[in-house]
């Protein structure tokens, strides 16, 4: 999900349409990735939206101006009505994207999705090294991903390969790039893990050292030169290494609308962690009301909510103060500046994590075990 969609021109007052609809159709997933951004308490989700609910969400979002629809999760292929949802999204005029681990994409389902009008498949890889891939995703999925990539090519879908990068796999970046080329991917997203949810729990194990990052960037540059137009490689460094924050989601309630498996509508994948805001549910409100009228979607729109240093910062429109969730996690208040910014009085929190990332694994005194994203750990961590 890192290719940016164009920002609404003149964002702010009144807001433009929710151009991007992310339909997280289920939290069920055969993988157990240690960097998953799904909420740590996902196992508490009781009832998933029905097929009928999702069809209504698609119609309402399209009428409100959504153009991109991503089917995500969890693993969206776990839902056996995915083809029905894709067909309706296609009929409505959405550009339809399937964000998948590839598990469950049989030849029959691929053909059905093609017939339903699916426009694009983004396939996630953990790493190109079979052993590490299986370790990081905690399942035997690597061979399957190769077969899935072949299916994607056979159905003539543009293929984006996505590999979340981190301390444990970043040293294999050259093998990952070579594999993406071999599989015929048009785009390769090598985005470093962002530290939310499960990735935040595992941050010390996942944040790469500066030397690792510099090496990875050098190799990426060399591969771009080597492969030219054959593949477009996008490399994103962890924002902990920046001194100015990202313009998260292109602004709160600006282009992006996530609907979670239970129907909660969010301005970003992880916003539900902000407990002070009651997020609306598509079972109770229309997409139009949620986007334009709800208190939640207006909460951090514009800049009137900002505190210092953001309020008086000349760059405030450039980054809108960064990420609300990151501000909450690292400072305790979502309205603070994202502490990635070196103007934040809490920037030290980020510097401490970065300093620890420079300590070689062998020299670390306490080693926290990796926490895999699965229902058992989810329940254990939610009390």
């Amino acid at each position, binding site marked *: 999900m890192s*290719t940016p969609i164009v920002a609404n*021109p003149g964002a702010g007052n009144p807001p433009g349409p929710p151009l991007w609809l992310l339909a997280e159709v289920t939290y069920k997933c055969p993988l157990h990735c240690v960097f998953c951004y799904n909420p740590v308490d996902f196992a508490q989700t009781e009832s998933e939206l029905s097929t009928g609910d999702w069809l209504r969400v698609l119609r309402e979002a399209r009428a409100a101006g959504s153009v991109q629809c991503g089917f995500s999760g969890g693993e969206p292929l776990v839902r056996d009505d995915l083809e029905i949802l894709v067909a309706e999204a296609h009929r409505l005029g959405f550009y339809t994207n399937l964000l998948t681990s590839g598990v469950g994409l049989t030849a029959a389902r691929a053909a059905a999705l093609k017939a339903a009008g699916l426009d694009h498949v983004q396939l996630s890889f953990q790493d190109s090294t079979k052993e590490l891939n299986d370790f990081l995703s905690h399942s035997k999925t690597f061979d399957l991903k190769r077969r899935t990539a072949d299916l994607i090519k056979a159905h003539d879908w543009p293929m984006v390969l996505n590999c979340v990068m981190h301390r444990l796999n970043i040293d294999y970046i050259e093998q990952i790039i070579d594999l993406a080329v071999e599989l015929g991917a048009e785009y390769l997203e090598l985005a470093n893990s962002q530290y939310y949810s499960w990735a935040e729990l595992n941050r010390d194990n996942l944040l790469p050292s500066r030397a690792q990052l510099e090496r990875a960037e050098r190799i990426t540059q060399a591969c771009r030169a080597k492969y030219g137009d054959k593949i477009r490689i996008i490399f994103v460094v962890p924002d902990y290494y920046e001194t100015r924050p990202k313009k998260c989601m292109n602004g709160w309630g600006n282009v992006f609308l996530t609907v979670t498996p239970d129907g909660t509508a969010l301005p970003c994948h992880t916003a539900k962690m902000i407990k002070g805001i009651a997020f609306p549910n598509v079972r109770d409100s229309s997409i139009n009301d949620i986007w334009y009228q709800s208190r939640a979607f207006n909460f951090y729109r514009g800049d009137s909510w900002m505190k210092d240093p953001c309020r008086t910062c000349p760059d405030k429109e450039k980054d809108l103060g960064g990420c609300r969730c990151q501000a909450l996690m690292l400072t305790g208040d979502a309205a603070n500046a994202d502490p990635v910014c070196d103007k934040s009085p809490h920037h030290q929190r980020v510097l401490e994590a970065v300093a620890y990332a420079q300590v070689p694994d062998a020299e670390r005194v306490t080693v926290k075990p990796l926490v895999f994203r699965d229902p058992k750990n989810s329940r254990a961590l939610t009390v």
Partner: protein
Amino acid sequence: MSAAPGDAMADVPVAMDLQACPRVAKLFKLQWEEVQKSWVLLYPEGMVKLNGSAGEIMSRLDGATSIAALVAKLEQQFQTTGLQTDVLNFLALAQRHGWVKL
């Protein structure tokens, strides 16, 4: 991202075969968006919003109409002359972005 015909290259002559028949590249889906009142190009997880003139040109590409015929059509429809340079400049830009194939 939006595109304006002739942007930043108005004076650069573009070498392009006027008999070529451009089409929208396979990776992109071109459609009119009523809510945005504009033509947009959709591609994996992204969108390019086209300005008025870019939309008028792109929406007429069908892989069968030559550039020369396209220019004539536009000049007739908008009752003007001398559009060839603007059209060629835009097509060159669109080709560089991979939006059209000649």
